[in-house]
């Protein structure tokens, strides 16, 4: 496919024009094998294939994102007028107690949820790939039924977050929930998990987030651990390393990149725990920043809502940058 551009003095200009408009099968033979026609044909094809996807993407994704940055600095309330008001929305946010309440919750989730989820995911993944009884001649073996565990753990991942939130809303229900029903049969009166104390609501939300994502990380990490060559583990075993030492000194450093990617991904998920909190929590209970944003949007405070969105974006960027710095060493090739 040559893009050779000679000084253009096309001998059959009309034929070229006709060939450019007509479907390829009507292209005259004399033009078909001309280099310039082939270049034209290539660009026509590229433009034709890119036009619709790019148009969709530009209109419904790129333009809203760019508009969001602009509207964050306006007092737009849905009407035709949006006055530029500088940083007023951000000042308002700074002084808005409800913003801080929801953001403290979001930041707590951002810090705690990835750690808990990744530790559990890594533990289970290691048990599944290396926790099994050793068979003759094998340095590392998975537990029996390892694929069954992965299937069950992964269940929550294929469900809609809204459905997960509805299910857990019932599980945590004060009077007729699964947890309080269980506590009741032990003779304990269960608390109001969601609408009561802040700490309990936070624990409930964390539980749901971890429950949803642990399976994802078990699958992810066991794939990464499975990719480590067996002889590395064999060597560690021969040198007398126990399972704990092997994990911390051999396995973990080798899957570090996957862990870091997973950590960033999980942090962004925790920061965006919109559906879980909106659907599961009663209206006046704990909120997270995206829910606070959504409520301002429904009230018609469009400018303020987009400003909150910008802050959320900044938070996720800062978080990603910090995590990318943690333990940043040379990549180990194997």
């Amino acid at each position: 496919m040559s893009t050779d551009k000679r000084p253009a003095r096309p001998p059959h200009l009309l034929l070229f024009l006709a060939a450019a408009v007509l479907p390829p099968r009507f292209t005259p033979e004399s033009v078909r094998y001309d280099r310039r026609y082939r270049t034209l044909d290539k660009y026509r094809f590229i433009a034709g294939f890119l036009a619709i996807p790019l148009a969709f993407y530009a209109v419904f994704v790129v333009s809203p994102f760019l508009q969001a940055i602009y509207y964050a600095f306006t007092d737009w309330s849905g009407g035709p007028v949006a006055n530029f008001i500088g940083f007023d929305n951000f000042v308002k946010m700074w002084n808005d107690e409800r913003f801080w309440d929801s953001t403290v919750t979001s930041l707590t989730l951002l810090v705690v949820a990835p750690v808990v989820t990744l530790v559990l995911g890594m533990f289970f993944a290691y048990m599944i790939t290396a926790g099994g009884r050793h068979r003759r001649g094998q340095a590392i073996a998975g537990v029996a039924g390892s694929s069954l565990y992965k299937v069950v753990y992964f269940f929550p991942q294929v469900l809609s977050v809204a459905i997960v939130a509805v299910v857990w809303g019932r599980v945590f229900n004060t009077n007729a929930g699964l947890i309080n029903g269980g506590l009741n049969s032990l003779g304990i009166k269960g608390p109001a998990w969601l609408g009561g104390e802040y700490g309990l609501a936070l624990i409930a939300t964390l539980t749901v987030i971890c429950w949803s994502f642990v399976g994802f990380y078990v699958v992810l990490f066991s794939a990464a651990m499975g990719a480590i060559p067996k002889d590395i583990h064999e060597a560690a075993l021969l040198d007398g390393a126990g399972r704990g030492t092997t994990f911390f000194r051999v396995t973990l450093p080798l899957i570090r990149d996957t862990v870091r990617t997973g950590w960033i991904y999980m942090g962004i998920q925790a920061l965006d725990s919109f559906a879980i909190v909106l659907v599961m929590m009663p209206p006046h209970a704990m909120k997270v920043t995206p829910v606070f944003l959504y409520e301002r949007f429904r009230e018609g405070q469009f400018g303020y809502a987009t400003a909150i969105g910008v802050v959320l974006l900044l938070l996720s960027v800062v978080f990603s940058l910090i995590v990318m710095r943690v333990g940043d060493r040379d990549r180990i090739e194997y």
Partner: protein
Amino acid sequence: MSTRSKAGRTGARGRRGGADRVREGGAALNVFSHAFLVLWAVMAAAPLIWVAITALRTSGDILGDPMGLPSSPHWQNFANAWTEAHIGQYAVNSLIVLAGSLTGTMLLGSMAAYVIARFTFPGNRFVFLLFAGGMMFPVILALVPLFAVMENFGLLDTRAGLIVAYIAYSLPFTTFFLTSFFRTLPTGVQEAAMVDGASHTRTFFQIMLPMAKPGLVSIGIFNFLGQWNQYLLPLLLNNENETSYVLPQGLASLAVAQGYRGDWGALFAGLTIAMVPVLVVYAVFQRQVQAGLTAGALK
């Protein structure tokens, strides 16, 4: 630490000794690890099993004793959920939207990805980065302007609008993923097709797409689940008319409504109807689903 001292003794016997030691130490750990694995498996499944069992009980029974088993299966809940709670209608809405959006996403995504992966043209890199960059922004940032854009196009509260939004927000990852997939395909086949006189379009549809099938399946599953389970976009763009709700949205609003009316049975039946097909499909295609969903993080 008795295993360690033993290891010192047996270590001298070399390779076999090492294996013996681990076999003994491993037994205790094996029980321990199995216990944890089973515990989490129970935790992962318990809420779902509880919902499925409770769906067969009357609302009165559920409120009386949430832990009980159904005395006799109360199938009426499912009928109530399907018709009175409109779960049937929501499922149909979801199917219609998904049929349009998944087809559109796969078609447009693979077209863009093919061109980016296999052709050199000015701006190639820019277009690629433009799509890839879209993956980094949270959808919630675009929430308000997207609402206004949809309103301007008259697409608010329509199925077409929902389909368009699903496609647009699935394109970044779909294009990114398929671009790297198309790059791995051999160039010879494409050239041979061109030499034989196939047009670019024909080469794409008859040669390259069939060759890209494994990649298309992975990203297809990813988009299928992502779009079937979508909640934020319908909540934003399809909120006016209750009969046009999609499944997750309908169940979330049903949960609020049943909180007042107290018909827990129908809600649990509705949840079961929504969950079982997805879980069955997942159980059948588990390997592909796991690969498809983790593909994003492993890139």
